[in-house]
């Protein structure tokens, strides 16, 4: 364990634990758009930048992303210094130029006193904030079906060669994790459409409702050791099954006790 000071309070943290986790544990609100529990920290949105210093640094201060900076003994952290807020406001000003109509950005910007960007809005604005959560989640799932393509300002999320991605299994993890709902999909009956692909959804033997895609079920049973039978019914039916089993166990144990 190490002890450090955050906004004037002395706190303890695991050595090497990232500052953002410690800050959040204290209930301090620091925006972080590229942060997601399912993936490793990224350091792309820069909004979680905080000011750090140490007694021994002779007044020198550094600005680091809390999501990637490990907690250190005697570190003095300020999450809302004047310079940090100025930095965050400028970042949001740039975000607004790229995503002027995105509610998440509008809200954060408004919290920092911005309603309109002071820069030139990009030619074709959309809701993608390029946080990379979708592509990293897809990597973590084991598919890497989509990725960041192009460099610099032309960067975008896309499947290889902008064609229907052969490695996609239609799990929807990307769309689920997207903080701005930019990734679109469609479930109609037992058909799912995403990234230009069409998947067939398995049907629950008990409820008759769609479950997951055939490809995703095959992947999970092959690579994650989940028996294929598991996917013959949907979660609702699984819950039913679980409830009735639990009921039977309870009734049985009560009987045993009264004996």
């Amino acid at each position, binding site marked *: 364990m190490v002890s450090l000071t955050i906004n004037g309070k002395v706190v303890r943290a695991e050595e090497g634990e990232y500052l953002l986790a410690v800050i959040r544990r204290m209930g301090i609100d620091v925006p972080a758009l590229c942060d997601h529990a399912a993936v490793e920290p*990224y*350091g*792309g*949105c*820069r909004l979680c*930048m905080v000011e750090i210093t140490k007694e021994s640094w002779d007044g020198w201060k550094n*600005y*680091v*992303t809390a999501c*990637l*900076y*490990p907690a250190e003994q005697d570190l003095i952290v300020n999450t809302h210094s004047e*310079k940090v807020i*100025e*930095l965050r406001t*400028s*970042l949001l000003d*740039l*975000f607004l*130029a*790229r995503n002027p109509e995105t509610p998440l950005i509008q809200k954060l910007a408004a919290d920092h006193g911005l309603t309109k960007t*002071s*820069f*030139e809005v*990009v030619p074709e604005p959309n809701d993608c904030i*390029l946080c*990379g959560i979708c592509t990293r989640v897809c990597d973590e799932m084991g598919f890497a079906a989509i*990725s*960041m393509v*192009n*460099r*610099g*300002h*032309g*960067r975008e999320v896309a499947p290889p060669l902008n064609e229907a991605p052969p490695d996609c299994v239609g799990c929807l993890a990307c769309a689920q994790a997207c903080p701005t709902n930019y990734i679109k999909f469609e479930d109609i009956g037992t058909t799912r459409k995403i990234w230009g692909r069409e998947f067939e959804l398995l049907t629950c033997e008990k409820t008759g409702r769609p479950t997951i895609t055939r490809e995703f079920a095959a992947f999970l049973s092959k690579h994650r050791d989940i028996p294929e039978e598991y996917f013959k019914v949907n979660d609702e039916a699984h819950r039913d099954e679980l409830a009735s089993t639990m009921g039977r166990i309870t009734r049985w144990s009560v009987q045993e006790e009264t004996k």
Partner: protein
Amino acid sequence: MRIESEKQLRDYRKKLADADKKLTKKIMVCHGPGCLASGAEKVSEEFEKQLKRKKITGVTVGSIKKTGCHSFCEKSPLVAIEPAQILYTRVKVKDVAEIIEKSIKGDEIIERLVYHDPHSNDAIPKYPDIPFYKHQTRIALRNLGKINACDIDDYIRVGGYEAAAKALLKMTPEGVIDEVTKANLRGRGGGGFPAGRKWKSCRAVESDVRYVVCNGDEGDPGAFMDRAIMEGDPHTVLEGMIIAAFAVGAKDGYIYVREEYPLAVVNLQKAIEQAEAIGLLGDNILGTDFSLHLHINRGAGAFVCGESSALMLSVAGNVGEPRAKYIRSVVKGLWDKPTVLNNVETYANVPMIIANGADWFTSVGAPKNAGTKAFSLVGKVRHTGLIEVPMGTPLRTIIYDIGGGILKDRPFKAVQTGGPSGGCLAEQHLDLSVDFDTLTKHGSMMGSGGMIVMDDRTCMVDVAKYFLSFLVSESCGKCIPCREGLYQLHKLAIAISEGRAQESDIEKMEHLSEMVVTGSLCGLGKSGPNPFLSTIANFRDEYLTHIRDHKCSAGVCKELIKYEIDAEKCDGCMACIAACAFNAISGKKTKPHVIDQELCTKCGACVAACTREAIMVL
């Protein structure tokens, strides 16, 4: 044959040197990038053909060496005749017979092919007397032009691998690190971080595996120092890496070469195979139990892969994007193992430090900036080329003595150092000494060593705009400040160059720049606003003229200028009419011509065509 002791290496070198002495004349044909582009290969082929045919005593086909870059690229293709130290410039295939007849068979000098002083027009036949070479001190580039790049024997003949032998057989790893630390060898890739300290920290980390990596991803526009070393003296890079690997305890090393340098890849690969074949690389080097395997990785054209963390991810097969370096790569680098990453030129200095000692190295250069630095001197100077000078050399010496001054003796305006994210220094900085600390203090940086000289016809807003556009397209796009911030800075620079900006935009750019510097993830973003920051610091008036008066005093920004013909000077030769692709110029022979402003696209073709300087830029 495997070389397994110092004595064997020494004996082998003596044998090679003796054989070399038997050659009475040597013909050194430069096969550097500039000379190859101007037809050096045909020249060396012609020499081979004619020598075979003529059978001259004491001169064999072996007397022709296809060497690395002779550096005086302005005068390419270059051929040096040794040991007389004669340098022939702009040699054509048709000159070969005459050179053989006069300078190989005889000892005559062909005056028309030697360098002539641009002012006095005096012939200077010997290269050590040419100002371009006279003011240089060569350590990293020592073998360029002296040896055949693809021949390990030639490298051994001039003392190659002796430093590696000394380190491996007579020194301890700690001793090597101490020597390099004492020499104060600072990273030549631009950062200037002391190599000895880097090696020491890497060795101190507990780990079963460590790596040495060489950064050959030289991407700055106009820079070719590392290219020249990798192509022209690949063994020195290997030797530097062997010494570094021995010092830190690495068994594997990677050389990351940019895809645009195919010859560097070929020559390095050949060098690795040659060194492995005689036991100077691979398993049990020089008969010791130290082994090092070197591998070549080819980059795929991303400028950002020259950034250390992006480079290591790229070597490992991932997308080359920088990551936060709060944990340094000497602790967690390539494949999360302790890694030493140094630049090509840094490695090229290492054998010389080990062979000659730290005291010798620190006797060259300036305080805290020991040794030399290689630069590629380009732009509006007379003598463009590859140079190496002691640290602390004044800019003036580089530009006026080595570079021969500004083309057509126009006034000097600025010099851009440090590549795209470096900065521009102005006339008042000409007497600054060129070293890591001085350049940084004045808003530029050493960078990897690109040096672009500009004259009064260069617009500084345009320069900032150009370098910003380079950085916008080379930003990886991972973090907002670099991706969006540089994009907006570039947009604002365009607005200024087109006369659409307000004075408040300068303040806006300064504020944004500060944010990009503080907020960016990697060095590329952090130094990204430098093209703007250093031009606004030294040339604020020029920005203001664009904004207030809608004028570009250098006559570059198309939206703010127009071309007109001076009727007094125009003799009506019609050359400009022929040159104009847009039929914007009209007039009769011997009568002054006129430009139609509606049709003129301001391409400048007429200015280039006019022999009387009659076309004015207003």
